[in-house]
Protein backbone atom coordinates (compact mmCIF):
# COMPACT_ATOMS: atom_id res chain seq x y z
CA UNK A 1 0.00 0.00 0.00
CA UNK A 2 1.44 3.43 -0.93
CA UNK A 3 2.25 5.43 2.16
CA UNK A 4 3.39 8.94 2.97
CA UNK A 5 5.36 10.00 6.01
CA UNK A 6 4.50 13.34 7.59
CA UNK A 7 6.07 14.40 10.88
CA UNK A 8 7.03 10.84 11.62
CA UNK A 9 3.46 9.53 11.27
CA UNK A 10 2.49 7.27 8.43
CA UNK A 11 -0.61 8.18 6.49
CA UNK A 12 -2.41 6.02 3.99
CA UNK A 13 -2.78 7.94 0.74
CA UNK A 14 -6.17 6.30 0.27
CA UNK A 15 -7.38 8.06 3.43
CA UNK A 16 -6.56 11.57 2.19
CA UNK A 17 -9.68 13.70 1.93
CA UNK A 18 -10.84 14.33 -1.66
CA UNK A 19 -10.33 18.10 -1.29
CA UNK A 20 -6.64 17.48 -0.49
CA UNK A 21 -6.08 15.56 -3.71
CA UNK A 22 -4.21 17.27 -6.49
CA UNK A 23 -6.77 16.26 -9.10
CA UNK A 24 -9.58 18.11 -7.31
CA UNK A 25 -8.07 21.61 -7.49
CA UNK A 26 -7.96 22.84 -11.13
CA UNK A 27 -11.38 24.50 -11.08
CA UNK A 28 -10.26 26.62 -8.11
CA UNK A 29 -6.82 27.40 -9.42
CA UNK A 30 -7.83 30.19 -11.81
CA UNK A 31 -9.62 31.93 -8.94
CA UNK A 32 -6.45 32.03 -6.88
CA UNK A 33 -5.31 35.56 -6.26
CA UNK A 34 -2.64 36.88 -8.59
CA UNK A 35 -0.70 38.68 -5.85
CA UNK A 36 1.72 35.78 -5.47
CA UNK A 37 2.20 35.36 -9.21
CA UNK A 38 2.77 39.07 -9.75
CA UNK A 39 5.21 39.36 -6.88
CA UNK A 40 7.15 36.30 -8.00
CA UNK A 41 7.19 37.53 -11.58
CA UNK A 42 8.39 40.98 -10.46
CA UNK A 43 11.20 39.59 -8.33
CA UNK A 44 12.33 37.14 -11.02
CA UNK A 45 12.29 39.88 -13.65
CA UNK A 46 14.44 42.16 -11.47
CA UNK A 47 16.96 39.39 -10.82
CA UNK A 48 17.06 38.40 -14.50
CA UNK A 49 17.54 42.01 -15.55
CA UNK A 50 20.47 42.37 -13.15
CA UNK A 51 21.99 39.15 -14.53
CA UNK A 52 21.51 40.28 -18.13
CA UNK A 53 23.11 43.67 -17.44
CA UNK A 54 26.12 41.88 -15.97
CA UNK A 55 26.35 39.61 -18.98
CA UNK A 56 26.54 42.63 -21.33
CA UNK A 57 29.26 44.20 -19.20
CA UNK A 58 31.50 41.17 -19.82
CA UNK A 59 31.13 41.26 -23.64
CA UNK A 60 33.99 42.70 -25.65
CA UNK A 61 33.21 46.24 -26.76
CA UNK A 62 34.12 49.90 -26.84
CA UNK A 63 32.66 51.02 -23.52
CA UNK A 64 33.60 47.80 -21.75
CA UNK A 65 37.27 48.44 -22.56
CA UNK A 66 37.39 51.93 -21.05
CA UNK A 67 38.40 52.92 -17.53
CA UNK A 68 35.16 53.26 -15.53
CA UNK A 69 36.12 56.73 -14.33
CA UNK A 70 36.49 57.84 -17.95
CA UNK A 71 33.07 56.38 -18.71
CA UNK A 72 31.49 58.29 -15.83
CA UNK A 73 33.08 61.58 -16.87
CA UNK A 74 32.19 60.99 -20.55
CA UNK A 75 28.56 60.25 -19.76
CA UNK A 76 28.36 63.25 -17.40
CA UNK A 77 29.89 65.58 -20.03
CA UNK A 78 27.43 64.41 -22.66
CA UNK A 79 24.51 64.70 -20.20
CA UNK A 80 25.48 68.30 -19.47
CA UNK A 81 25.72 69.14 -23.16
CA UNK A 82 22.29 67.57 -23.77
CA UNK A 83 20.82 69.69 -20.97
CA UNK A 84 22.48 72.92 -22.15
CA UNK A 85 21.86 72.54 -25.87
CA UNK A 86 19.00 74.50 -27.40
CA UNK A 87 19.18 72.78 -30.77
CA UNK A 88 17.08 69.75 -31.57
CA UNK A 89 19.60 68.70 -34.19
CA UNK A 90 22.48 68.72 -31.74
CA UNK A 91 20.54 66.67 -29.18
CA UNK A 92 19.45 64.25 -31.92
CA UNK A 93 23.12 64.03 -32.96
CA UNK A 94 24.15 63.04 -29.42
CA UNK A 95 21.34 60.49 -29.33
CA UNK A 96 22.61 59.00 -32.59
CA UNK A 97 26.13 58.97 -31.19
CA UNK A 98 24.86 57.10 -28.09
CA UNK A 99 23.27 54.46 -30.31
CA UNK A 100 26.54 54.08 -32.21
CA UNK A 101 28.44 53.74 -28.90
CA UNK A 102 25.90 51.10 -27.91
CA UNK A 103 26.44 49.16 -31.13
CA UNK A 104 30.21 49.38 -30.66
CA UNK A 105 29.69 48.02 -27.14
CA UNK A 106 27.81 44.90 -28.28
CA UNK A 107 24.36 46.28 -27.43
CA UNK A 108 21.90 45.87 -30.29
CA UNK A 109 20.12 49.08 -31.35
CA UNK A 110 16.77 47.29 -31.13
CA UNK A 111 17.29 46.31 -27.50
CA UNK A 112 18.66 49.73 -26.63
CA UNK A 113 15.80 51.66 -28.28
CA UNK A 114 13.12 49.33 -26.88
CA UNK A 115 14.49 49.53 -23.34
CA UNK A 116 14.33 53.35 -23.41
CA UNK A 117 11.22 54.04 -25.47
CA UNK A 118 8.96 51.48 -23.82
CA UNK A 119 9.24 53.16 -20.43
CA UNK A 120 9.45 56.71 -21.71
CA UNK A 121 5.74 57.42 -22.49
CA UNK A 122 4.74 56.58 -18.90
CA UNK A 123 7.05 59.12 -17.32
CA UNK A 124 7.55 61.81 -19.95
CA UNK A 125 4.20 61.46 -21.76
CA UNK A 126 2.33 62.74 -18.69
CA UNK A 127 4.21 66.02 -18.93
CA UNK A 128 4.45 66.29 -22.71
CA UNK A 129 0.79 65.75 -23.49
CA UNK A 130 -0.58 68.87 -21.76
CA UNK A 131 2.43 70.93 -22.93
CA UNK A 132 1.42 70.28 -26.55
CA UNK A 133 -1.85 72.13 -26.00
CA UNK A 134 -1.27 74.69 -23.27
CA UNK A 135 2.03 76.24 -24.44
CA UNK A 136 1.12 79.59 -26.05
CA UNK A 137 2.19 80.04 -29.68
CA UNK A 138 1.05 79.91 -33.31
CA UNK A 139 -1.53 77.17 -33.98
CA UNK A 140 -0.19 74.18 -35.90
CA UNK A 141 -3.03 71.70 -35.88
CA UNK A 142 -6.72 71.94 -34.88
CA UNK A 143 -8.21 68.89 -33.24
CA UNK A 144 -11.81 68.08 -32.24
CA UNK A 145 -13.18 69.43 -28.93
CA UNK A 146 -11.46 72.76 -29.62
CA UNK A 147 -7.96 71.41 -28.87
CA UNK A 148 -5.10 73.15 -30.65
CA UNK A 149 -1.51 71.93 -30.92
CA UNK A 150 0.81 74.94 -31.04
CA UNK A 151 4.16 74.94 -32.83
CA UNK A 152 5.85 76.17 -29.64
CA UNK A 153 4.15 73.35 -27.71
CA UNK A 154 5.37 70.81 -30.25
CA UNK A 155 8.94 72.15 -30.13
CA UNK A 156 8.94 72.18 -26.31
CA UNK A 157 7.61 68.61 -26.22
CA UNK A 158 10.18 67.41 -28.77
CA UNK A 159 12.97 69.01 -26.75
CA UNK A 160 11.78 67.31 -23.59
CA UNK A 161 11.30 63.96 -25.29
CA UNK A 162 14.71 64.01 -26.96
CA UNK A 163 16.52 65.27 -23.88
CA UNK A 164 14.99 62.59 -21.66
CA UNK A 165 15.51 59.76 -24.15
CA UNK A 166 19.13 60.76 -24.80
CA UNK A 167 19.89 61.15 -21.10
CA UNK A 168 18.29 57.81 -20.25
CA UNK A 169 20.15 56.14 -23.13
CA UNK A 170 23.49 57.55 -21.97
CA UNK A 171 22.91 56.38 -18.41
CA UNK A 172 21.76 52.99 -19.65
CA UNK A 173 24.90 52.71 -21.77
CA UNK A 174 27.00 53.29 -18.66
CA UNK A 175 25.21 50.82 -16.42
CA UNK A 176 24.88 48.11 -19.07
CA UNK A 177 28.57 48.15 -19.91
CA UNK A 178 29.92 48.46 -16.36
CA UNK A 179 29.26 46.11 -13.43
CA UNK A 180 27.46 47.96 -10.64
CA UNK A 181 30.28 47.41 -8.18
CA UNK A 182 32.74 48.99 -10.62
CA UNK A 183 30.47 52.00 -11.22
CA UNK A 184 30.38 52.52 -7.47
CA UNK A 185 34.14 52.21 -7.03
CA UNK A 186 34.67 54.67 -9.91
CA UNK A 187 32.54 57.29 -8.16
CA UNK A 188 35.69 58.22 -6.23
CA UNK A 189 36.61 60.29 -9.28
CA UNK A 190 33.72 62.59 -8.36
CA UNK A 191 35.06 62.76 -4.79
CA UNK A 192 32.14 60.78 -3.41
CA UNK A 193 33.29 59.71 0.10
CA UNK A 194 34.44 56.08 0.37
CA UNK A 195 32.05 55.32 3.20
CA UNK A 196 29.13 56.52 1.06
CA UNK A 197 30.27 54.26 -1.80
CA UNK A 198 30.50 51.34 0.62
CA UNK A 199 26.97 51.97 1.88
CA UNK A 200 25.62 52.22 -1.69
CA UNK A 201 27.38 48.98 -2.59
CA UNK A 202 26.05 47.21 0.47
CA UNK A 203 22.54 48.48 -0.24
CA UNK A 204 22.60 47.01 -3.75
CA UNK A 205 24.21 43.80 -2.58
CA UNK A 206 21.79 43.15 0.27
CA UNK A 207 18.71 44.22 -1.71
CA UNK A 208 19.76 41.53 -4.17
CA UNK A 209 20.18 39.01 -1.36
CA UNK A 210 16.83 39.90 0.22
CA UNK A 211 15.15 39.64 -3.19
CA UNK A 212 16.44 36.08 -3.39
CA UNK A 213 15.16 35.39 0.12
CA UNK A 214 11.78 36.94 -0.73
CA UNK A 215 11.62 34.86 -3.90
CA UNK A 216 12.30 31.67 -1.92
CA UNK A 217 9.66 32.60 0.65
CA UNK A 218 7.05 33.26 -2.04
CA UNK A 219 7.91 30.02 -3.84
CA UNK A 220 7.73 28.08 -0.60
CA UNK A 221 4.35 29.60 0.10
CA UNK A 222 3.17 28.93 -3.43
CA UNK A 223 4.18 25.28 -3.22
CA UNK A 224 1.91 24.84 -0.20
CA UNK A 225 -1.16 26.78 -1.41
CA UNK A 226 -3.95 24.51 -2.57
CA UNK A 227 -7.29 25.79 -3.82
CA UNK A 228 -8.74 29.24 -3.46
CA UNK A 229 -7.04 31.93 -1.35
CA UNK A 230 -9.04 35.06 -0.75
CA UNK A 231 -7.71 38.63 -0.78
CA UNK A 232 -7.62 38.98 3.00
CA UNK A 233 -5.51 35.82 3.32
CA UNK A 234 -3.19 37.10 0.60
CA UNK A 235 -2.73 40.40 2.42
CA UNK A 236 -2.01 38.57 5.68
CA UNK A 237 0.58 36.46 3.88
CA UNK A 238 2.21 39.52 2.31
CA UNK A 239 2.35 41.23 5.70
CA UNK A 240 3.87 38.13 7.31
CA UNK A 241 6.53 37.82 4.59
CA UNK A 242 7.32 41.56 4.82
CA UNK A 243 7.67 41.27 8.60
CA UNK A 244 9.94 38.24 8.35
CA UNK A 245 12.09 39.96 5.72
CA UNK A 246 12.37 43.08 7.86
CA UNK A 247 13.41 41.01 10.86
CA UNK A 248 15.93 39.08 8.72
CA UNK A 249 17.40 42.28 7.29
CA UNK A 250 17.74 43.82 10.77
CA UNK A 251 19.50 40.73 12.03
CA UNK A 252 21.73 40.65 8.98
CA UNK A 253 22.65 44.34 9.28
CA UNK A 254 23.91 43.85 12.83
CA UNK A 255 25.87 40.74 11.78
CA UNK A 256 27.40 42.62 8.84
CA UNK A 257 28.50 45.38 11.20
CA UNK A 258 30.15 42.80 13.46
CA UNK A 259 31.90 41.28 10.43
CA UNK A 260 33.21 44.74 9.50
CA UNK A 261 34.39 45.41 13.06
CA UNK A 262 36.06 42.02 13.15
CA UNK A 263 38.22 43.02 10.20
CA UNK A 264 39.26 46.35 11.65
CA UNK A 265 36.52 48.79 10.57
CA UNK A 266 36.54 51.80 12.90
CA UNK A 267 34.16 54.15 11.07
CA UNK A 268 36.59 55.39 8.41
CA UNK A 269 36.84 53.61 5.09
CA UNK A 270 40.12 53.04 3.29
CA UNK A 271 39.93 51.56 -0.22
CA UNK A 272 42.42 50.17 -2.70
CA UNK A 273 41.51 52.42 -5.68
CA UNK A 274 42.76 49.90 -8.24
CA UNK A 275 42.06 51.78 -11.51
CA UNK A 276 44.83 52.70 -13.92
CA UNK A 277 44.42 55.11 -16.86
CA UNK A 278 45.74 53.87 -20.23
CA UNK A 279 46.67 56.01 -23.25
CA UNK A 280 43.43 55.05 -24.99
CA UNK A 281 41.43 56.33 -21.97
CA UNK A 282 43.08 59.74 -22.25
CA UNK A 283 42.44 59.85 -26.00
CA UNK A 284 38.81 58.88 -25.50
CA UNK A 285 38.34 61.42 -22.74
CA UNK A 286 39.79 64.19 -24.91
CA UNK A 287 37.53 63.29 -27.84
CA UNK A 288 34.38 63.14 -25.71
CA UNK A 289 35.12 66.39 -23.90
CA UNK A 290 35.73 67.97 -27.32
CA UNK A 291 32.43 66.61 -28.68
CA UNK A 292 30.57 67.83 -25.59
CA UNK A 293 32.10 71.32 -25.84
CA UNK A 294 31.31 71.59 -29.57
CA UNK A 295 27.73 70.43 -28.87
CA UNK A 296 27.27 73.12 -26.26
CA UNK A 297 28.76 75.71 -28.65
CA UNK A 298 26.60 74.65 -31.62
CA UNK A 299 23.47 74.33 -29.56
CA UNK A 300 23.76 77.62 -27.66
Amino acid sequence: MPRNQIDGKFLDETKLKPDMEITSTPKHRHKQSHVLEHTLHGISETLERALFAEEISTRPGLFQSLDPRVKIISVLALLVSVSLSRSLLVIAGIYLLTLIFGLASSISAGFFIKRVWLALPFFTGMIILPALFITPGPALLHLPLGLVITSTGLTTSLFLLLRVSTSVSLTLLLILTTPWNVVLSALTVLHVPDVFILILGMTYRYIYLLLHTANDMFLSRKSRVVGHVDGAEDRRMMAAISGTLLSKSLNMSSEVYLAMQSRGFRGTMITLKPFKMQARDWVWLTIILGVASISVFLGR
Partner: protein
Amino acid sequence: MIPEIVFELKQVSFAYDGKQPALENINLTVTAGECLVILGANGSGKSTLLKLLDGLYFPTQGTVCAFGKPLSEDVLRDDDYNFAFRRRIGLVFQDSDVQLFSPSVLDEVAFAPLQLGLSRAEVSQRVDSALTTLRIEKLRDRAPHRLSGGEKRRVALASVLTLNPDVWLLDEPTTGLDPRSQSWLTEFILEQREIGKTVITATHDLDIAEKIATKIYVFDEEHHIVASGEPSEILYDHELLHRCNLVHYHLEAAQQSKHN
Protein backbone atom coordinates in the same frame (compact mmCIF):
# COMPACT_ATOMS: atom_id res chain seq x y z
CA MET B 1 59.30 26.75 26.51
CA ILE B 2 55.77 27.23 27.87
CA PRO B 3 53.39 27.99 24.99
CA GLU B 4 51.69 31.38 25.06
CA ILE B 5 48.16 31.43 26.42
CA VAL B 6 46.03 32.92 23.67
CA PHE B 7 42.67 32.95 25.43
CA GLU B 8 41.65 32.35 29.00
CA LEU B 9 37.96 32.41 29.92
CA LYS B 10 36.97 32.34 33.58
CA GLN B 11 33.35 31.72 34.60
CA VAL B 12 32.06 33.45 31.51
CA SER B 13 28.32 33.79 30.96
CA PHE B 14 26.57 35.69 28.21
CA ALA B 15 22.90 36.45 27.61
CA TYR B 16 21.34 38.24 24.64
CA ASP B 17 19.43 41.33 25.80
CA GLY B 18 20.49 40.33 29.29
CA LYS B 19 17.85 37.62 29.52
CA GLN B 20 18.30 35.06 26.75
CA PRO B 21 21.21 32.87 27.89
CA ALA B 22 23.75 31.79 25.27
CA LEU B 23 26.72 30.80 27.44
CA GLU B 24 26.75 29.59 31.04
CA ASN B 25 29.79 29.53 33.29
CA ILE B 26 32.41 28.80 30.64
CA ASN B 27 35.99 28.07 31.69
CA LEU B 28 38.39 27.59 28.83
CA THR B 29 42.08 27.99 28.07
CA VAL B 30 43.55 28.05 24.59
CA THR B 31 47.30 27.89 24.06
CA ALA B 32 49.17 28.95 20.92
CA GLY B 33 49.32 26.34 18.17
CA GLU B 34 46.32 24.36 19.39
CA CYS B 35 43.64 23.24 16.97
CA LEU B 36 40.59 23.39 19.14
CA VAL B 37 37.15 22.20 18.13
CA ILE B 38 34.04 23.42 19.90
CA LEU B 39 31.36 20.81 19.42
CA GLY B 40 27.75 21.56 20.10
CA ALA B 41 24.27 21.30 18.66
CA ASN B 42 22.54 24.25 16.99
CA GLY B 43 21.84 27.04 19.47
CA SER B 44 24.26 25.71 22.08
CA GLY B 45 26.32 28.94 22.09
CA LYS B 46 29.29 28.10 19.83
CA SER B 47 28.93 31.13 17.56
CA THR B 48 28.44 33.42 20.54
CA LEU B 49 31.65 32.07 22.07
CA LEU B 50 33.60 32.86 18.90
CA LYS B 51 32.21 36.41 18.90
CA LEU B 52 33.30 36.80 22.52
CA LEU B 53 36.79 35.60 21.60
CA ASP B 54 36.86 38.08 18.71
CA GLY B 55 35.94 40.98 21.00
CA LEU B 56 32.62 41.57 19.27
CA TYR B 57 30.50 40.66 22.29
CA PHE B 58 31.48 41.04 25.94
CA PRO B 59 30.50 38.69 28.76
CA THR B 60 27.64 39.54 31.08
CA GLN B 61 29.62 37.72 33.79
CA GLY B 62 33.20 36.51 34.11
CA THR B 63 36.34 37.55 32.25
CA VAL B 64 37.84 36.90 28.83
CA CYS B 65 41.59 37.40 28.59
CA ALA B 66 43.27 37.59 25.19
CA PHE B 67 47.08 37.35 25.02
CA GLY B 68 47.22 37.86 28.78
CA LYS B 69 45.10 41.02 28.84
CA PRO B 70 41.42 41.26 29.86
CA LEU B 71 39.23 42.00 26.86
CA SER B 72 36.65 44.74 27.28
CA GLU B 73 34.96 47.48 25.28
CA ASP B 74 37.19 50.06 26.94
CA VAL B 75 40.38 48.22 26.05
CA LEU B 76 39.28 47.83 22.43
CA ARG B 77 38.49 51.55 22.16
CA ASP B 78 42.22 52.17 22.21
CA ASP B 79 43.21 52.32 18.51
CA ASP B 80 46.66 50.80 18.97
CA TYR B 81 45.38 47.86 20.98
CA ASN B 82 42.42 47.39 18.64
CA PHE B 83 44.68 47.29 15.58
CA ALA B 84 47.12 44.87 17.26
CA PHE B 85 44.24 42.63 18.40
CA ARG B 86 42.45 42.62 15.04
CA ARG B 87 45.68 41.85 13.21
CA ARG B 88 46.22 38.74 15.32
CA ILE B 89 42.70 37.29 15.21
CA GLY B 90 40.58 36.45 12.19
CA LEU B 91 36.97 35.32 12.39
CA VAL B 92 35.27 33.56 9.49
CA PHE B 93 31.51 33.89 9.94
CA GLN B 94 29.12 31.02 9.47
CA ASP B 95 27.09 32.93 6.87
CA SER B 96 29.43 34.04 4.10
CA ASP B 97 26.83 36.51 2.86
CA VAL B 98 27.26 38.40 6.12
CA GLN B 99 31.02 38.50 5.76
CA LEU B 100 31.15 39.48 2.09
CA PHE B 101 29.81 43.03 2.15
CA SER B 102 32.16 44.75 -0.33
CA PRO B 103 31.23 45.41 -3.96
CA SER B 104 33.91 43.12 -5.44
CA VAL B 105 36.08 40.18 -4.38
CA LEU B 106 39.16 42.38 -4.67
CA ASP B 107 37.69 45.01 -2.32
CA GLU B 108 36.58 42.27 0.06
CA VAL B 109 39.96 40.60 0.29
CA ALA B 110 41.74 43.95 0.63
CA PHE B 111 39.33 45.28 3.27
CA ALA B 112 40.99 44.05 6.46
CA PRO B 113 44.63 44.94 5.74
CA LEU B 114 43.59 48.36 4.44
CA GLN B 115 41.55 49.17 7.55
CA LEU B 116 44.45 48.03 9.70
CA GLY B 117 46.78 50.55 8.14
CA LEU B 118 49.00 48.45 5.89
CA SER B 119 50.54 50.24 2.89
CA ARG B 120 48.77 49.82 -0.46
CA ALA B 121 51.78 47.99 -1.92
CA GLU B 122 51.77 45.53 0.99
CA VAL B 123 47.99 45.10 0.68
CA SER B 124 48.24 44.38 -3.06
CA GLN B 125 50.93 41.81 -2.44
CA ARG B 126 48.90 40.12 0.31
CA VAL B 127 45.75 40.15 -1.84
CA ASP B 128 47.54 38.49 -4.76
CA SER B 129 49.06 35.91 -2.46
CA ALA B 130 45.70 35.12 -0.76
CA LEU B 131 43.87 34.83 -4.09
CA THR B 132 46.55 32.46 -5.37
CA THR B 133 46.61 30.36 -2.17
CA LEU B 134 42.84 29.91 -2.30
CA ARG B 135 42.84 29.50 -6.08
CA ILE B 136 40.33 32.26 -6.71
CA GLU B 137 42.37 34.61 -8.94
CA LYS B 138 39.65 34.42 -11.59
CA LEU B 139 37.05 35.75 -9.15
CA ARG B 140 39.07 38.93 -8.47
CA ASP B 141 36.67 41.39 -10.12
CA ARG B 142 33.44 39.49 -9.52
CA ALA B 143 30.70 40.70 -7.20
CA PRO B 144 30.59 38.42 -4.12
CA HIS B 145 26.82 37.88 -4.31
CA ARG B 146 27.20 36.24 -7.72
CA LEU B 147 29.41 33.44 -6.39
CA SER B 148 28.53 29.87 -5.48
CA GLY B 149 28.53 28.74 -1.83
CA GLY B 150 31.99 27.15 -2.12
CA GLU B 151 33.43 30.22 -3.85
CA LYS B 152 31.95 32.50 -1.22
CA ARG B 153 33.58 30.44 1.52
CA ARG B 154 36.95 30.66 -0.23
CA VAL B 155 36.60 34.43 -0.58
CA ALA B 156 35.60 34.69 3.10
CA LEU B 157 38.75 32.74 4.03
CA ALA B 158 40.87 34.89 1.71
CA SER B 159 39.44 38.03 3.31
CA VAL B 160 40.85 36.82 6.63
CA LEU B 161 44.01 35.24 5.20
CA THR B 162 45.22 38.69 4.06
CA LEU B 163 45.46 39.54 7.77
CA ASN B 164 47.77 36.56 8.27
CA PRO B 165 46.23 36.11 11.75
CA ASP B 166 47.87 34.12 14.52
CA VAL B 167 44.46 32.82 15.54
CA TRP B 168 41.74 31.58 13.21
CA LEU B 169 38.17 31.46 14.49
CA LEU B 170 36.00 29.39 12.15
CA ASP B 171 32.25 29.26 12.62
CA GLU B 172 30.65 26.14 11.11
CA PRO B 173 33.11 26.19 8.20
CA THR B 174 31.77 23.10 6.41
CA THR B 175 28.08 24.02 6.45
CA GLY B 176 26.59 24.03 2.97
CA LEU B 177 29.75 22.91 1.22
CA ASP B 178 29.92 20.04 -1.25
CA PRO B 179 32.23 17.09 -0.36
CA ARG B 180 35.12 18.36 -2.51
CA SER B 181 35.01 21.83 -0.91
CA GLN B 182 34.77 20.23 2.56
CA SER B 183 37.84 18.15 1.88
CA TRP B 184 39.71 21.17 0.51
CA LEU B 185 38.74 23.17 3.63
CA THR B 186 39.99 20.42 5.92
CA GLU B 187 43.33 20.50 4.10
CA PHE B 188 43.44 24.27 4.48
CA ILE B 189 42.88 24.06 8.25
CA LEU B 190 45.52 21.35 8.59
CA GLU B 191 48.00 23.54 6.68
CA GLN B 192 47.31 26.41 9.08
CA ARG B 193 47.84 24.04 12.01
CA GLU B 194 51.10 22.82 10.57
CA ILE B 195 52.53 26.32 10.25
CA GLY B 196 51.79 26.93 13.92
CA LYS B 197 48.56 28.91 13.77
CA THR B 198 45.98 28.54 16.49
CA VAL B 199 42.68 27.37 15.00
CA ILE B 200 39.40 27.36 16.91
CA THR B 201 36.55 25.76 14.98
CA ALA B 202 32.93 25.75 16.11
CA THR B 203 31.03 22.92 14.47
CA HIS B 204 28.66 20.01 14.88
CA ASP B 205 30.39 18.12 12.07
CA LEU B 206 32.07 15.17 13.79
CA ASP B 207 33.99 14.18 10.65
CA ILE B 208 35.93 17.42 10.42
CA ALA B 209 36.41 17.43 14.21
CA GLU B 210 38.11 14.05 14.02
CA LYS B 211 40.40 15.20 11.21
CA ILE B 212 41.58 18.53 12.57
CA ALA B 213 41.21 18.66 16.36
CA THR B 214 44.03 18.45 18.87
CA LYS B 215 41.49 19.11 21.64
CA ILE B 216 37.70 19.16 21.77
CA TYR B 217 35.27 21.02 24.03
CA VAL B 218 31.65 19.88 24.04
CA PHE B 219 28.68 22.15 24.68
CA ASP B 220 25.33 20.82 25.82
CA GLU B 221 22.04 22.42 24.84
CA GLU B 222 21.95 24.33 28.13
CA HIS B 223 25.03 26.31 26.97
CA HIS B 224 27.51 24.67 29.36
CA ILE B 225 30.81 22.99 28.53
CA VAL B 226 30.16 19.43 29.62
CA ALA B 227 33.37 17.74 28.48
CA SER B 228 36.79 18.43 27.08
CA GLY B 229 39.65 16.24 25.99
CA GLU B 230 41.49 14.50 23.18
CA PRO B 231 39.45 13.62 20.07
CA SER B 232 39.95 9.92 20.77
CA GLU B 233 38.23 10.31 24.17
CA ILE B 234 35.39 12.58 23.12
CA LEU B 235 34.41 11.29 19.69
CA TYR B 236 33.88 7.72 20.89
CA ASP B 237 31.89 8.65 23.98
CA HIS B 238 28.54 7.89 22.37
CA GLU B 239 26.54 8.53 25.49
CA LEU B 240 28.01 12.05 25.72
CA LEU B 241 27.50 12.79 22.03
CA HIS B 242 23.94 11.50 22.16
CA ARG B 243 23.16 13.52 25.29
CA CYS B 244 24.45 16.70 23.59
CA ASN B 245 22.40 16.03 20.47
CA LEU B 246 25.49 15.51 18.33
CA VAL B 247 24.68 12.05 17.08
CA HIS B 248 21.49 10.45 15.92
CA TYR B 249 20.93 6.90 17.05
CA HIS B 250 21.32 5.62 13.44
CA LEU B 251 24.76 7.13 13.19
CA GLU B 252 25.66 5.94 16.65
CA ALA B 253 24.75 2.39 15.69
CA ALA B 254 26.77 2.67 12.50
CA GLN B 255 29.79 3.94 14.38
CA GLN B 256 29.50 1.16 16.95
CA SER B 257 29.33 -1.47 14.24
CA LYS B 258 32.34 0.17 12.54
CA HIS B 259 34.35 -0.21 15.75
CA ASN B 260 33.17 -3.73 16.36
